[in-house]
């Protein structure tokens, strides 16, 4: 059987669904590779990728909490996850992969992410019942079961993972010993003195440590493990033996396919992680970039990103990795970073040791004492977050050492705050996030993060190993302190409520005017923040015209004049062109109006036409002509629905599978005029090619063979976000129902000027919560939200047509209250590329006393 996508999209096959394979798929989705590739991921284990770094916590939190994909499937429908299946082999000439169930997968590109296998020394008895490795959740389950009837255990291997395993055995109540061949524990990360300090810590916890010890065999009794014998003749009692003596890359598939492998194992890849076959790539522990294998997750993540970048035609390269490590082993902090063993020529060591407290700290500095090269921390690694970014990586970055570098490791050392990190310092090395990016996340104008948790969510800093979380928190707090800001969600000084709370109290009390809301829930007289916010809430709930006397002085100038103010005080005019579909007659009218009023014209990004340079007093005359020709307000000025962009869809396009233009028009007409916390944009694409760029919109709809996929929470601008799948393969009716609910839920609960993406992010539960409310209707709000939208649709009236009918509303469209026909002399124009553009203003202008006097009312 051959599995292949029905049309001619390319196929990317990923073998391995560990942390790195998962990251690769995530990157492929996030970076849009799935726009051109279908992705098939094959995972050998029966569960989806989980956090192997935190494996030991399985005993406390269970498998669920470790999962990196709790839903068990990817949201992006173009990614298929096949679990519990093994690849038997692949053939680079036919570009096919054979799975153990006989399935043949064709691929255009193949990524090997098969990871590594624990190395079990071939000593006699290594495969007896009671012998285990420490790699998967199943391994841990088996160890737990065996420990139930055991009293003692031995871990072979005193490295990072070995100590984790020893910790686990001790935690299961076993008398535990650690056997390490090297002369010290964690030989790769710490030096002899650090290892000695670590041994003391471990022994204090009741574990026995045997370093410089070679294992000669597993002792058997009655077909089971009973102990471990060492070369010096010692026999250690053990009902459970865990081998954790290093890992070996799983490069068998590549070997069988005759790809190049590294001398010490691992699939040999170049800087782009491409193997000796141009369509096969390798990432993570099974790969050997430049012949070297990396047994940490961060370099694997980088390789995953590099491959996705390469498949997108990008220049990304993997040029080595920061092998810094910080962890808490058996309750002991251990960190190792940079040139920990002082191999740089002329490197000097600064050492601080406190045997009583159990602290060992070593800094490796350059021969002139100005630069930090690396270090080792045992017992107290609190300085790690500050020290690691000070080290230059590949000669890049780094910060000069302070005058007395020993202060950095002495007790009560200077904290993070006093050794200011430069913006380019990498704070999170797992995800390569700099201090600058963290500050940017809280400082940016649009949707800034309000706390460290939000920063971790938005930038990924601290989301993998978590060792930099305290530093991230500190940077965020310092920044807020510098700004003199407290985290306060009050709308403004007149209302100590959030917009969502205000929305509720207005609804509950049935307020219809700002004055009532202010009197009942606010203080003072109001301001330019709360007035438009309350006006928007009232408009959402009542659907009254924004220029009604009770509301008009609440509106920002754009809403107050139903047009967009420009820098010289003139306005731009945008008639609605639903779905971007316009007749030649319509275009001619727009052209004639622009010509007759001397307006600058430009096509907008939302598939309509913007007419610039209208004086406020000209707006009614301009709109009279547009309304006559059948146009209506495009609400370009409002915090409301702007456009629903569309591709041409199945009507014309040979690829289209649904009528995207028809759907876009229907949705634009349905939601036009809906006042919301921020502007709203939509898009509808007629097929998976996504020409309408719908996933860059607050709501994006993409046609499928069976109906529509609904994506929510996208936007462009300074912090672009792709919309994420809310529900798939919907019929027209269900699509509209979900959209009604989604939009009304947003209108009711979002903060002022909060677009859908950050709104979803700050909801407890995020997109899953939205799905619960909108799709599963767990709050039972569905029909109420739909009814609210139905009222909006029913009550819709073109604001400009209504304004033109009402002399009282028109009265305000004058340049001067006492000289309505005199144009404001401050407004001047010049010509650029045959169109009218604003002339710069030199300052206040006086018409002098020569102007005709008096205009009757």
């Amino acid at each position, binding site marked *: 059987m051959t599995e292949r996508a029905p049309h001619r999209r390319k196929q990317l096959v990923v073998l391995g669904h560990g942390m790195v394979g998962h990251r690769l798929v995530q990157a492929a989705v996030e970076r849009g590779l799935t726009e051109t590739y279908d992705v098939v991921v094959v995972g050998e284990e029966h569960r989806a990728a989980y956090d192997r770094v935190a494996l030991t916590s399985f005993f406390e939190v269970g498998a669920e909490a470790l999962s990196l994909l709790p839903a068990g499937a990817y949201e992006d429908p173009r990614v298929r996850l096949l679990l519990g299946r093994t690849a038997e082999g692949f053939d680079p000439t036919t570009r096919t992969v054979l799975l153990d169930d006989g399935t043949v997968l064709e691929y255009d590109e193949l990524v090997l992410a098969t990871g590594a296998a624990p190395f079990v020394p071939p000593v006699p008895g290594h495969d007896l019942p009671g012998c285990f490795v420490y790699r998967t959740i199943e391994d841990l389950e088996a160890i737990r079961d065996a420990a139930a009837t055991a009293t003692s255990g031995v871990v072979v291997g005193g490295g990072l993972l070995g100590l984790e395993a020893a910790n686990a055995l001790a935690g299961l109540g076993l008398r535990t010993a650690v056997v390490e061949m090297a002369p010290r524990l964690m030989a790769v990360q710490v030096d002899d003195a650090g290892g000695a300090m670590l041994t003391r810590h471990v022994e204090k916890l009741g574990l026995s440590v045997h370093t410089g010890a070679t294992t000669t065999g597993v002792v058997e009794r009655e077909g089971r493990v009973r102990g471990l014998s060492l070369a010096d003749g010692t026999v250690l009692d053990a009902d459970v033996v865990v081998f954790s003596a290093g890992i070996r890359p799983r490069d068998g598939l590549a070997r069988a396919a005759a790809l190049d492998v590294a001398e010490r194992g691992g699939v040999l890849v170049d800087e782009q992680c491409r193997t000796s076959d141009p369509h096969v790539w390798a990432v993570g522990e099974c790969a050997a970039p430049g012949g070297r294998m990396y047994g940490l997750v961060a370099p694997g993540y980088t390789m995953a990103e590099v491959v996705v970048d390469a498949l997108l035609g990008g220049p990304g390269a993997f040029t080595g990795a920061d092998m810094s490590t910080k962890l808490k082993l058996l309750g002991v902090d251990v960190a190792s970073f940079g040139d920990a063993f002082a191999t740089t020529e002329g490197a000097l060591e600064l050492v601080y040791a406190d045997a009583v407290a159990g602290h060992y700290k070593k800094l490796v500095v350059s021969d002139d004492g100005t630069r930090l090269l690396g270090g080792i921390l045992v017992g107290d690694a609190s300085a790690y977050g500050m020290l690691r970014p000070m080290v230059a990586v590949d000669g890049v970055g780094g910060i000069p050492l302070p005058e007395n570098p020993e202060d950095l490791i002495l007790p009560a050392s200077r904290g993070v705050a006093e050794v200011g990190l430069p913006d380019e310092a990498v704070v999170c090395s797992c995800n390569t996030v700099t201090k600058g990016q963290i500050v940017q996340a809280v400082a940016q104008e649009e949707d800034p993060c309000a706390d460290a948790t939000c920063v971790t969510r938005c930038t990924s800093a601290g989301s993998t190993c978590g060792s930099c979380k305290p530093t991230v928190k500190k940077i965020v707090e310092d920044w807020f302190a510098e700004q003199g800001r407290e985290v306060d969600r009050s709308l403004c*000084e007149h209302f100590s409520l959030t917009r969502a709370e205000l929305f509720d109290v207005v609804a509950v009390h049935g307020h219809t005017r700002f004055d009532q809301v202010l009197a009942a829930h606010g203080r*003072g*007289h*109001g*301001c*330019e*923040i709360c*007035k*438009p916010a309350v006006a928007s809430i009232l408009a959402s709930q009542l659907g009254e015209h924004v220029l009604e*006397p009770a509301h*008009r*002085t*609440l*509106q*920002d*100038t754009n809403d*107050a*004049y139903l047009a967009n*103010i420009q*820098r*010289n*005080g003139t306005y731009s005019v945008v008639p609605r062109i639903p779905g971007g579909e316009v007749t030649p007659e319509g275009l001619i009218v727009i052209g004639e109006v622009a010509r007759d009023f001397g307006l600058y014209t430009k096509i907008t990004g939302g598939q309509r036409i913007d007419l610039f340079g209208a004086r*406020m007093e000209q707006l009614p005359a301009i709109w009279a002509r547009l309304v006559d020709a059948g146009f209506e307000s495009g609400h370009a000025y409002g915090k409301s629905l702007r456009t629903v962009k569309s591709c041409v869809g199945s009507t014309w396009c040979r690829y289209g599978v649904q009528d995207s233009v028809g759907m876009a028009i229907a949705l634009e007409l349905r939601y036009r005029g809906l006042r919301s916390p921020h502007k709203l944009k939509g898009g509808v694409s007629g097929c998976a090619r996504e020409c309408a760029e719908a996933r860059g919109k607050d709501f994006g709809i993409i046609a499928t063979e069976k109906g529509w996929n609904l994506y929510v929470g996208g936007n462009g601008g300074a912090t672009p976000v792709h919309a994420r799948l809310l529900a798939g393969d919907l019929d027209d009716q269900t699509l509209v129902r979900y959209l009604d609910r989604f939009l009304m839920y947003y209108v009711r609960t979002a903060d002022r000027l909060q677009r859908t993406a950050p709104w979803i992010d700050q909801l407890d539960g995020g997109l899953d919560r939205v799905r619960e409310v909108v799709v599963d209707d767990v709050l039972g709000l569905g029909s109420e939200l739909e009814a609210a939208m139905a009222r909006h649709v029913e009550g819709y009236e073109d604001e400009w047509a209504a304004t033109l009918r009402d002399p009282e509303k028109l*009265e*305000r469209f004058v*340049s*001067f*209250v*006492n*000289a309505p026909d*005199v144009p*404001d*002399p*401050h*407004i001047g124009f010049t010509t650029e590329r045959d169109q009218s553009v604003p002339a*710069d*203003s030199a*300052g*206040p*202008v*006086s*018409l*002098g*006393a*020569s*102007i005709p*006097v*008096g*205009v*009757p*009312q």
Partner: protein
Amino acid sequence: MTAQPTTQPTTDGTTVVCRLAQVPREGGVTALVRGEAVAVFRTRDDGLFALGNYDPIGRASVLARGLLGSTEVEGELVPYVASPLHKQRYDLRTGRCLDDPAVRVPTWRVHVTGDGEVVVGERRE
């Protein structure tokens, strides 16, 4: 009999620009006074204020179209207009910019007559 609104002052140096009812509460209108664009505001307690309409920061003649607000500064409630361009706030009483003390717009005397006419007087210096 009420006077017609004019753009030029009468002999006493004052200009009748409109009727009070034409200025919405918590809103403003632009008047032409001796060739200059003057923004006339009416607060919720019917206080009248007149400022130059030109926003020196946004460099456009727009202040009458700004939203009115109030803020507490050292225990005192300061009424202001926020420019519709970039939201800088100008004290209605003094013309001083609350967000940049170096910036100030001119102010005019303004009052309402017993007949409900809004009269703009001398420009204050």
